[in-house]
């Protein structure tokens, strides 16, 4: 059960390969109605029926928030992943009926900002595309610095540069172009908010540099969806529902709980939002915490786990679920 979010029955209306790795999908309501409004930075959780496996992956919405006829997402193929992105690339064709969640925004613009400074790495560009459409409609002040591997893998770089030539800056790894971050941050007027979406290393680099330069924590925003990592299978006892379940090698703990028919709360399924936080009643073994929601003390306490991305190795684990 996703906390407070209804599901939307949709039909895939368009599948467009963007480049070698990225494909764009467009969803319209199957009943022909309008989609709920959303704000730039929001994501939807896409349900994928892959044989006996049900996958639920979050993807940032990249369409114009003012356009309620459809949502679009872009999915980067991850050949080493658990299969969600491969399923999207291989099995999702125009006409397919699917279920997605209502939009949820864990990466909103702070509209009190006098300027929005956006830093994107790779597929981390997608939430910014919706945010830029939202800001452009209200003559908002933004600047995008977008780091890509090569020109051929630079999803939407041409469109963004053409639409906003003075506001969009592209950096190509293969040409050794690097964002001059310290200089960039140092020159920003008071009231600028900083947003970063991309690989973990980039988020850490941007956050650390901003902190060292005295940027207030409240003015720095990031989003990183973690894919649930695979690992050794393990057994869990669910105390409230009185069930013993097995978590498979490529399954997340949350997915195993859901597969057992137990209703567990979730929102982002990527370790970011905190919705699925679960109390540990007892354990004998080692936690493999992967979220960025719980504090280090909570990780060490053995009292909490985020079942969307975290795992366990050991003899017994009993959860309050």
């Amino acid at each position: 059960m996703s906390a407070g979010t209804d599901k939307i029955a949709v039909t895939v209306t368009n599948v467009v390969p963007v480049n070698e790795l990225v494909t764009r999908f467009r969803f319209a309501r199957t009943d022909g109605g309008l989609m709920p409004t959303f704000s730039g930075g929001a994501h939807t959780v896409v349900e994928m029926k892959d044989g006996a496996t049900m996958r639920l992956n979050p993807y940032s919405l990249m369409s114009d928030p003012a356009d309620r006829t459809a949502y679009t997402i872009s999915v980067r193929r991850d050949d080493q992943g658990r299969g969600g992105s491969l399923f999207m690339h291989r099995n999702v064709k125009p006409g397919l009926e699917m279920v997605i969640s209502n939009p949820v925004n864990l990466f909103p613009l702070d509209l009190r900002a006098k300027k929005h400074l956006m830093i994107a790495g790779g597929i981390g560009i997608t939430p910014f595309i919706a945010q830029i459409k939202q800001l452009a409609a209200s003559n908002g002040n933004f600047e995008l610095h977008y780091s890509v591997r090569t020109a051929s893998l630079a999803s939407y770089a041409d469109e963004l540069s053409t639409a906003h030539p003075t506001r969009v800056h592209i950096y190509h790894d293969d040409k050794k172009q690097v964002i001059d971050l310290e200089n960039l941050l140092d020159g920003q007027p008071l009231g600028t908010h900083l947003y970063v979406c991309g690989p973990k290393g980039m988020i850490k680099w941007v956050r650390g540099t901003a902190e060292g330069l005295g940027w207030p924590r409240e003015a720095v925003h990031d989003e990183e969806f973690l894919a649930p990592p695979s690992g050794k299978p393990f057994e869990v006892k669910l105390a409230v529902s009185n069930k013993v379940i097995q978590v498979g090698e490529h399954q997340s703990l949350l997915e195993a709980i859901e597969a057992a028919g137990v209703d567990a709360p979730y929102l982002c399924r990527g370790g970011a939002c905190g919705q699925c936080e679960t109390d540990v009643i007892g354990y004998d073994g080692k936690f493999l915490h992967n979220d960025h929601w719980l504090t280090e003390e909570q990780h060490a306490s053995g009292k909490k786990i985020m079942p969307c991305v975290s795992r366990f190795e050991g003899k017994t684990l009993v959860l309050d679920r």
Partner: protein
Amino acid sequence: MPKTAFEPSIKSRPIYGTLEPRPGKSHLMIADAEGAEAILDLAKSTPKGMFDHTHIIYIPKKTGETFTGRLRELNPAQCYVGPSYEAALPRLRRVLNDAHMGLQVYLSGSEGLMGQAMLEATNAGIPHSAIQTEHRGSTARRMQCVHCKGITEDVTTDPFQCAHCGLHLFVRDHYSRRIAAFQGVRVDAEEPGNVPEPVERFK
């Protein structure tokens, strides 16, 4: 004079901390009266060279020359000593207008001074939670009359008489960040004329 301890109160009542050096390429310190002592205490633990990038705006009020010499001895990049907050305001606005992200703001002294400077800094785009404050000296309050909206500065008694409309006002802990003032409400609204004897609550 040490920093002030306040009674616990309602959530909207501002609370103040102790100034500490933070990383940043420029620093703005604004103080009135005994607030200078918070800057002098802070200076004991600042990294070398921090005052080369520090702008001090200081309003001595009744303390006169007591602290101005010692503040200047810190050798800040700029040190402005002025007769009133209003006199310093154009300078403060200019500094904030030209500043970049990473500017650290340190406020110390009376609640009225810190509240008004905080308002300018937040209007300039700094989150209020990122601005450091330390209370020193007078606990007199800057009050807004909720009836006529007039501001009465340096209120020391409760109730007090509004300097604008003359109503007798009860001093509340209810604080407005937008106005940078506590709220004063008519004390004899139910029974006009029945005004309790003013008590000196603030010094």
